């Protein structure tokens, strides 16, 4: 069976499990919206937000809710040792990584579809100014973040302090992704938008994605061996 087909099977299974329990969708969505809401009290005054706040809060919400989703997605695989069952399948082990990554991307995209309009509403951010560019920045940033996160969450699945270790390892490595996401989104949301700058940050995100996902694909199989 091809790696891609196995990855799709695993992603489909993850989405089916999520459709049944709705545990990750509800918790990450609630967390992301609560995060945006709390920051809106601090950074919005008389209907006007501090410059650059909307872009920063959007990416903080993406990173925090993404970390929550990563931890829980692998906690599910730990409960009945099903991660081991996936590793025992005759598919290439990178298929497990790609399948888990694809499932997480769909979930994070669903959360972003909700929080972007909330940001637009609470921070008066011009989210409709360059929707495709904004979507591309979010897509590329989410891929970079989840690409590294999926590898680390899988590595830590048997660690006792995995809930603490995941953000400690993940955030320093994904700082370039978060910075590029914030700066690119900020360039779109600015009073005088700079689309060239946003495209330049997007290019940087695509570069980070290529590096991070390639490294994760390369290291996943060896790090999963016990």
């Amino acid at each position, binding site marked *: *069976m091809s790696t891609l087909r*196995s990855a799709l*099977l*695993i992603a489909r*299974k993850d989405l*089916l*499990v999520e459709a*049944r*329990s709705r545990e990750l969708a509800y918790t990450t969505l609630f967390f992301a919206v609560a995060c945006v809401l709390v920051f809106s009290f601090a950074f919005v005054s008389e209907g006007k937000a501090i410059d650059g706040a909307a872009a920063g809060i959007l990416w903080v919400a993406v990173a925090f809710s993404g970390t929550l989703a990563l931890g829980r997605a692998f906690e599910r695989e730990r*409960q*009945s*040792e*099903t991660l*081991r*069952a*996936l*590793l*025992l*399948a*005759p*598919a*290439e*082990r990178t298929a497990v990584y790609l399948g888990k990554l694809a499932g997480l991307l769909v979930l994070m995209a669903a959360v972003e579809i909700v929080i972007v309009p909330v940001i637009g509403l609470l921070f008066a951010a011009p989210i409709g100014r360059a929707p495709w560019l904004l979507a591309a920045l979010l897509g590329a940033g989410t891929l970079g973040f989840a690409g590294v996160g999926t590898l680390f969450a899988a590595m830590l699945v048997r660690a006792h302090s995995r809930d603490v270790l995941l953000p400690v390892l993940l955030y320093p490595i994904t700082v370039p992704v978060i910075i590029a996401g914030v700066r690119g989104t900020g360039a779109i949301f600015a009073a005088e938008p700079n689309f060239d700058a946003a495209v330049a940050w997007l290019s940087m995100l695509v570069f980070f994605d290529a590096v991070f996902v390639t490294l994760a694909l390369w290291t996943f199989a060896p790090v999963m*061996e*016990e």
Partner: protein
Amino acid sequence: MSRHFGRRRALAKTTLTFRAGQVTGLFGPNGAGKTTLLGILSTVVRPTAGEVRYGGATARALGDPLRGRIGVLGHDLFLYGDLSARENLEFFGRLYGVERLEDRVAQALASARLDDRAHDRVASFSRGLRQRLALERALIHDPRLVLLDEPFTGLDDESAGLLGERLQKLRAAGAIVLMATHDFESADGLIDRMIALRAGKVREIVPDGGSLRDRYRRAMAEEWA
């Protein structure tokens, strides 16, 4: 092969050969290295020294397709609680590339006597029902090497009898079966060969009369080199 976890020795210079059509019972106290041995044979645990040869070739040489010929029933059951019995079997069947999957899943559900619970979530099953389903999950791709870790856990007498019949069929089909268990009564009469493990060391127990439990106790009472 040997396997160490830090300074702890789980398996020490172990050499074993398993043959087709043979059911081997693996016995030993808790922490003796039984699960480690099964993990190494299933390819998910790497030996610290030495290697495993599957029909003469190493796992590295045989690559990913080798795992398609191994079936593992773990102590944890490798089942998704939020999926139904049928969905679990279908998912793993597809992952293993099982042909005529619908027929095979129906057959597996019938073997586990779960036809009437096929659409129920696995989380709602008792330990015994999950154990029966997990065995079918492990065998859905007709593996050549079958590794069973405590397969009798949670099974009632009738289910244990059915597991026994299943082992006989696997033996007749030429599979290599390795079963780690503490249940001497259930395993008695089902195994062709008995191996004991203690502190990572392996000893073959010869069939010199007496029940499995008696032979095991005698072996454990002796000095191990």
